[in-house]
């Protein structure tokens, strides 16, 4: 029996890697702190990270941008949900209909070559001057990544598992529910991770360039008004939000992988 990779790997080694990672981040932050305080970086354009953090805390406590934060998070969350749902269904349809897949393959491959933001004016015409064009932007940016990863996962289900399903006399629905989906879950999960990242990028990017409210808009507004503490405070908050979401997704993925895949150590 091969031992559990996690248990084989000594705790001190795992912790050492994490500690080194944190050390690299802390080193960069300290370097920026020293750079701005000692005048290596122009303090007019860049404030020390400690001030950014204080400003972020202040913004959070005051609640001055509560509405904007809420608008961004809600738009991005709706975009993620829609992208995950429709991307998954689209992936399943492409898997079940290979002819359709052959037709759409080149379009899917070149999808991310199109700068999606050019669609924003058209989306405003279609959906009105509200938050929905931003949601649509987030959705459109994320949905294909979700679909392609779902398709990839479904295609990689080992044939022997499907034969086992037949051996156990499973119907189509049970096969999909009990074998195909769990077997393709790691790929589907990668699709979810990408959908989250892409939706946030599109929504915040859209706000930054074209919107009149939201996280991105307020960062751009502060930038245009030379309000460095607010701009960096909002950027820090945004980094913390997105970092936390990514960390949670990473932890969920680790739990998933720990169970099913041998890590590189074994």
């Amino acid at each position, binding site marked *: 029996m*091969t*031992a559990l*990779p996690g248990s084989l790997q000594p705790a001190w080694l795992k912790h050492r890697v994490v500690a080194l990672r944190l050390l690299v981040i802390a080193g960069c932050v300290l370097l920026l702190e020293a750079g701005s305080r000692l005048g290596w970086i122009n303090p007019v354009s860049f404030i020390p990270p400690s001030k950014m953090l204080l400003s972020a805390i202040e913004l959070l406590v005051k609640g001055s941008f509560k509405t904007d934060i809420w608008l961004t998070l809600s738009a991005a969350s709706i975009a993620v949900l829609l992208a995950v749902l429709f991307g998954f269904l689209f992936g399943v349809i492409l898997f079940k209909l290979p002819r359709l897949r052959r037709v759409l393959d080149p379009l899917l491959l070149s999808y991310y070559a199109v700068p999606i933001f050019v669609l924003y004016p058209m989306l405003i015409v279609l959906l009105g001057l509200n938050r929905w064009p931003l949601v649509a932007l987030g959705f459109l940016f994320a949905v294909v990544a979700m679909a392609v990863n779902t398709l990839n996962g479904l295609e990689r289900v080992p044939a022997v598992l499907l034969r*086992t399903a037949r051996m156990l*006399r499973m119907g189509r629905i049970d096969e999909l529910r009990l*074998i195909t989906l769990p077997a393709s879950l790691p790929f589907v999960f990668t699709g979810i991770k990408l959908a989250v990242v892409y939706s946030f990028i599109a929504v915040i990017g859209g706000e930054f360039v074209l919107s009149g409210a939201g996280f991105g808009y307020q960062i751009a507004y502060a930038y245009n008004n030379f309000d460095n503490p607010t701009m960096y405070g909002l950027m820090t908050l945004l980094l913390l939000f997105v970092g936390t979401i990514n960390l949670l997704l990473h932890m969920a993925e680790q739990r998933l992988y720990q*169970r*099913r895949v041998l890590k590189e150590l074994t």
Partner: protein
Amino acid sequence: MSLARNPIVSVKEATKTFSARDTGQPFHALGPVSFDLREGEFFSVVGPSGCGKSTLLDLLAGLGAPSSGSVHFEGKPVVGEVPDGIAVVFQEDASFPWLNVFDNAAFGLRRAGLPEDQVKARVDHALDFMGLSGCAGIYPSQLSGGMRQRVCIARAMVLRPRLMLLDEPFGALDQQTRLLMGEEMLKLWRDTGSTIMLITHSIDEAVLLSDRIGVMSSCPGRFIEIVETGWSPERDAQTAMDPRFGALQAQIWGMLRAESIKALKAKR
């Protein structure tokens, strides 16, 4: 174990022809093949690579339909789906990586709606039998190839099949593990009384484990001969010391050698 038993499987003039994916030309992969599997026997099939051994197993399992001829299991025709009472163990690792060892073994029983206490009793027994009782809570990724194959055998065993079809289940294992797994299969066969058909590349394995050995020709595979070993059901690794063991090996290799050369030439 008596060999003079009723046939549990009856194959009559079965053939299989595939349509080649690239050219669309028909490809005659198997047969015609006719033979019976006797209830409670251990039957092995040996033959050159690509002769249609696994195709034959698919026909018996209901995982594929014969192009002509017929396959009957317990007197009923095998058409389109795996009949109740048949379990298959494949060469590739078919354990479910998202389920722990216990849940893997219990999968078929839970699907059949067996009460949980009975599931537990049967699975515990199977895991104990396969030497996996200490591994119930861990996941296949934490096991070696041999152990994962045991999980698959346990999953098949708990269903209490009357016929177990083993498609080179030890093919990917090292020689020592193969020998141990072979001994365990013999023990399983003796304890359960199931009929077993084993597809294997190994003449040694077939001679040691089987009551009868079907020797197949190169593609399209047909049985050249079905050899009776005459071993007692209590056979074990020591049987390999019996002078008849070497004679049987030589007899089967004598039949297979020319066919293997033919198969090799066809590949080139």
